């Protein structure tokens, strides 16, 4: 029921070890920053949907922050960071030449085996892991369609950081694309029956996507967020309610089969 249970494990004794990575690119996109670091070991082991635990590069922050893999190209890992609080603010303002400490890749990837058509549904910063997923699906020859929802123009500027050909936008304040939520966008979608839905965003949005997919008779996967302490399965801090009971987002997720998600 959870995706990719045994894939991408066994990275040897260095599993989850912290690596100091040089920042080689950093670009602001509205409320977001796209940051690229050199991280060969992580890039080699990674798969779309996984995440890294990132040390906030300033004293005074006790826990690391989980960030999705936004892009993975050659030996480089890209992150898309939204300034949502004091820690992510520090992360969003790193500069080229500085160092970020990353541990990963962690968690379960999006299953992509045999998929020919993917519908990627993202909300806000939940769009981040979908670029890497789109890259992987495209590499495998699958048709990729994405529907992203943002709150306002400041958030929607992040769209410019994405490279997905068929990308529809909605903003709640109507400033870009269709006014409304990403779920309103889905209402106009007539997806082929072989389409696999991949979604990431706030739990309420994921629940709405789950309902829509259920009605459209489409299967799929959801990547969930939770406040984390360890990120490595030790603390049981990051659980979400699923049809299988409480599961850890960091180790049994973040990717779960869409129909196991329990709406709040």
């Amino acid at each position: 029921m959870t995706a990719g249970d045994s894939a991408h494990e066994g990275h040897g004794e260095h599993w989850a070890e912290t690596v100091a990575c040089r920042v080689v690119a950093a670009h602001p996109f509205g409320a977001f920053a796209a940051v690229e670091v050199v991280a060969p070991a992580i890039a080699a082991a990674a798969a779309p949907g996984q995440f890294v635990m990132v040390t906030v590069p300033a004293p005074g922050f006790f826990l690391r922050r989980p960030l999705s893999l936004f892009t993975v190209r050659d030996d480089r890992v890209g992150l898309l960071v939204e300034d949502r609080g004091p820690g992510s603010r520090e992360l969003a303002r790193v500069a080229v030449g500085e160092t970020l400490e990353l541990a990963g890749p962690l968690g379960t990837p999006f299953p992509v085996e045999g998929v020919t058509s993917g519908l990627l549904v993202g909300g806000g910063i939940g769009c981040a892991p979908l670029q890497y997923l789109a890259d992987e699906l495209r590499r495998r020859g699958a048709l990729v369609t994405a529907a992203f929802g943002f709150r306002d123009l400041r958030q929607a500027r992040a769209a410019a950081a994405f490279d997905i050909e068929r990308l529809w936008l909605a903003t709640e304040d109507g400033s870009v694309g269709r006014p409304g939520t990403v779920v309103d966008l889905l209402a106009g979608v007539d997806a082929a029956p072989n389409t696999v839905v991949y979604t990431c965003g706030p739990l309420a949005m994921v629940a709405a996507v789950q309902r829509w997919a259920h009605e459209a008779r489409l299967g799929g996967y959801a990547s969930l967020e939770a406040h984390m302490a360890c990120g490595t399965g030790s603390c049981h801090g990051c659980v979400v309610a699923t049809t299988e009971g409480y599961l850890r987002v960091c180790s049994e997720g973040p990717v779960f089969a869409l129909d196991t998600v329990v709406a709040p």
Partner: protein
Amino acid sequence: MSAAAPGARPVPAPDPAERPALPAVPEAEVDLGVRLGPLELEHPLVDASGTFDAVEYARRSRGDFFAAFPYAAYVPKTVTVEPRAGNPPPRVTETAAGMINAIGLANPGVEAWLGSLSELGALRQPMIVSVGGNAPEHYAAVVRAVEAWAAGRAGARPAVGGYELNVSCPNLSGGRLIGAEPAATAEVVAAVRAETGRPVFTKLTPNVTDVLPVAAAALGAGSTGLALVNTFKALVLEPKSLRPFLGNRTGGLCGPAIKPIALRMVAEVAAAFPAVPLVGMGGVVCGLDALEFIACGATAVAVGAANFRGVEAPRRILDELRRELAVRGFGGANEARGVALAGA
């Protein structure tokens, strides 16, 4: 290669309408006034005893200081019957997200202290006199001296608005901690109650298994309200020698480090005694911190160690509190009180 995906579409042009949502209540309309039992306060902030010396400020900055006095009531450092030299130095140092102190209630004794009050003749706000001692008689003696001083001064400044009974200082060597025992606390309150008709706030220690029996005992003996928390008994070592750093060995921990524990205790006391006026404190450094104590049931909020980070701290915290209330749609401090407690 840039982190932006190649072929990324152009950034939408900046929009002049792009600004944060309007506050639900205009800041200027937020009513900060609160009633702390019988005391009308212009806003919820008071200083925490031992962290803000108005006499010292008045000496340095002269009259202008009183025009912009940042607190709604002035709580001086705890005063005892006899002068106390305090503990041997060092007395303070920084800790992770906080600090530790072992001042040991250094004060000139109540008589000399009353003498220094002539320098506060321009203080408009009421004074809540913090009283310390090792036995009920000591507390009563201090209050008696203050009442004698205040007698016939009606209307004169500074005005005695009430008393805070410090039964919770962890830095008195040899002494038991009165505030750890309900019966001992009640005796102190009763002894003071016999000396004054003014409001009395008993300041509770967090160094207890259960704060509610002590709170109940204080209230049962006539305490008008409660103040909490005092500092946590703690130990810091000098890193080279690994010996206790403070001259008094142990000291009291305060600052943001302890805020979550302090909030829990204030919420517990507020839930158990909803009608009792509370002064909440412990780690307040910004307006949101103050609002959190109010949400947990405090009527007034004391600012302690944050005073050490800049003399403008209380004004800033007050401005922030007003803004934090406004953005959440609260028309006043009273509306926010206890909102964290519902369903507790």
